[in-house]
């Protein structure tokens, strides 16, 4: 039992960190822009495809990770400028419909451009270590560490860079930030680009575990939305905490019930959060 407990703890933390990386981009975009980005899963998927193409051309996983992040960030910026910026100040329903439309376009574009056959991203190293009765791949731990490093990088950027300060100011009061001379429209484009780049990075990191296909984003985005709600919409630290909390809860639940039933736990947590504390479980109570 202890063996299984420790295995599920490691599983929970690894999956939680990938989820945190996906969800942090989503929550950043929502927190600052009030945009519920339904195309986030497709940006995750496109990142993986750009990774496949770069990897095939260069043979370097790390270069593929960098190129995918930058290319999809640029695409995110273009999407924002062309489709979301004109909707600034309108009913949030408009942005929901637009991002949902973009998700359909991107998914079908990938199917048309890359075809239906799943592609492979080879992990940068293939070592294993013995974890009781399993051989556990080092790569999964590396994903968790890299996700943590990327999120930490984002946190440092938000905390210390000029743009970070502007972003935080805009999150608190967009109108006042604009009045103080912060270029809000440009800032929003940058935020959308950062969120898109983070989705792409998680797509490349997760690619070696599943095979890259046009529908791979669907599997993550639903869970990422749960995490964003439970963590508190727009609360970055809350989303990270919620990712790990939900993943660990599911992992521990799967010790007693089938993992397919354990998935219900995350929905139960979501419902309870909405009923008892709709601002999010990990949002400090206002004093």
């Amino acid at each position, binding site marked *: 039992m202890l063996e299984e407990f420790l*295995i599920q703890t490691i599983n929970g933390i690894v999956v939680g960190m990938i989820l945190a990386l996906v969800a942090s981009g989503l929550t950043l975009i929502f927190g600052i822009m009030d945009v519920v980005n339904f195309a986030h899963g497709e940006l995750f998927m496109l990142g993986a495809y750009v990774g496949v193409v770069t990897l095939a051309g260069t043979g370097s996983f790390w270069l593929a990770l960098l190129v995918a992040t930058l290319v999809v960030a640029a695409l995110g910026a273009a999407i924002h400028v062309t489709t979301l910026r004109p909707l600034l100040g309108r009913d949030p329903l408009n942005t929901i419909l637009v991002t949902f439309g973009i998700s359909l376009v991107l*998914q079908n574009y990938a199917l048309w451009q*890359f075809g*239906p*056959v*799943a592609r492979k991203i080879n992990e940068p190293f293939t070592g294993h270590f013995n974890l009781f009765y399993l051989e556990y791949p080092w790569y999964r731990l590396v994903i968790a560490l890299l996700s943590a490093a990327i999120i930490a990088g984002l946190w440092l950027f938000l905390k210390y860079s000029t743009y970070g300060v502007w972003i935080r100011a805009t999150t608190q009061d967009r109108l006042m930030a604009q009045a103080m001379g912060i270029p809000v429209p440009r800032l929003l484009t940058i935020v959308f680009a950062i969120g898109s780049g983070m989705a792409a990075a998680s797509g490349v990191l997760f690619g070696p575990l*599943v095979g890259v296909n046009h529908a791979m984003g*669907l599997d993550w985005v639903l869970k990422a939305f749960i995490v964003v709600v439970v963590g508190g919409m727009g609360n970055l630290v809350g989303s990270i905490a919620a990712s790990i909390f939900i993943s660990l809860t599911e992992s521990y639940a799967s010790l007693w019930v089938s*993992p*397919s039933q354990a998935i219900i736990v995350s929905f139960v947590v979501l419902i309870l959060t909405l009923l008892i504390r709709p601002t999010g479980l990990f949002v400090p109570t206002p004093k």
Partner: protein
Amino acid sequence: MTDNNNRDDWEEAFWYSGKTTRRRLVGWSAKAAGALGAMMLVPAPWRAAFGAAKPFKIGSLQPLSGNAAAGGKTALVGVQMAVDRINKMGGINGRPVEIVTGDDESKPDVARRKIEKLLVEDEVDAHVGGFLSNICLACMPVFEENKVVNMISVCLDTTLTTTKCNRYSFRPYDYAPAQAVAFAPYLVNKLGKRWHLIYADYSWGQSTRDAYAQEIKKAGGEIVGGTGIPLGTADMTPFLSKISGDFDGLFAIEFGKDGVTIGNQAYDLGLTKKYKWAGDGALAESTNLPGLGNKIEGFVGINRYIPVFDPPLNTAAHHKFFDDAVARLKQIDPSGPLPDRYVQSNYEAMNALKIGMEKSNFQGRDDTMKLIEALEGLEMKEGDDFPQGDKVLRKEDHQAFIREFIFDIKDGKHRILETVPKEKTIFPPACKFASS
């Protein structure tokens, strides 16, 4: 000058002679519009080949988007290949064939709506398609209600031709009980006696699990456990990391992107090294191999079709099918995948329908019962129509029996280990048609 005079005369005659009345002008316009409409409805190649013959409309509902889109796209290639070949050879009963496609979005509720549209609004004469078993199960009653023949072309859920069978639906390829009859002796005698089953947790996976559990036990083996994984699970590690203990082999029943996921993640956790690694051939379809890389090496599976030219697949008919399929698949996927069983079974299902329509001199839905009678017990001979091999469509349950290939993956390619003749895959019928 003379020309101008002539034109003026013609214009005068047209407008002022009294021959062109408003009524005639409206009549000519209506005829011209009708002719134009007819030209638009009948595509150009058919106009050349068949004159004004009314095409047969064959519906084909496939998952062209959503989770199963990858398989749906290759499935449609199979139907299109068959229809193009049929039209090139003169159509069916002198009439061309037109495919009316529908996208079920990999969802049963959408499928049910789309199939009703195909049958009621588009008035298709027959149907070839169906990919996900839960969708086939949801749609089968609609064919019965509308009295239209349904040639299932991919769905493998056992109950389609057993407890939920109906007279209007046919499965002209194998099903899990036949595969299990063919594969279980090999699994038990050559790989190991004690097996753990991992299956896609929906209708196909569950019925296939039951079929293998029964046949493995019958062959002297033992089932030590089972793990159901819901469709579309991105991270299967929580499921796979619970699998441990003393047994010989892991048998996986997964397909499509879930097949790629389990192939990668079972390897990553060392399970494919620790245990014998076998399963339904859907996991290692040619279209899945690029996503699996070298992690699928050594996998042993069973399939009705694999894209190799080892005997008995070293035939001219198979070469022809293979070359055409490769060229068409390249158009939908730049990586140039090899044909899989979805291309093969859709191609052959359409050809089986063609033979049935010819035998019954089918002219439209009024002849559906004659078509059903022609298809019941249909014997299909290996050749250009059926490159996979001979098959028989059993009258009692509309289930076909075909030869099976036991294979492994070596150096990233399929390799035939054994061919099981169709006679050794027979499983007794368990269907009672409502009308009989």
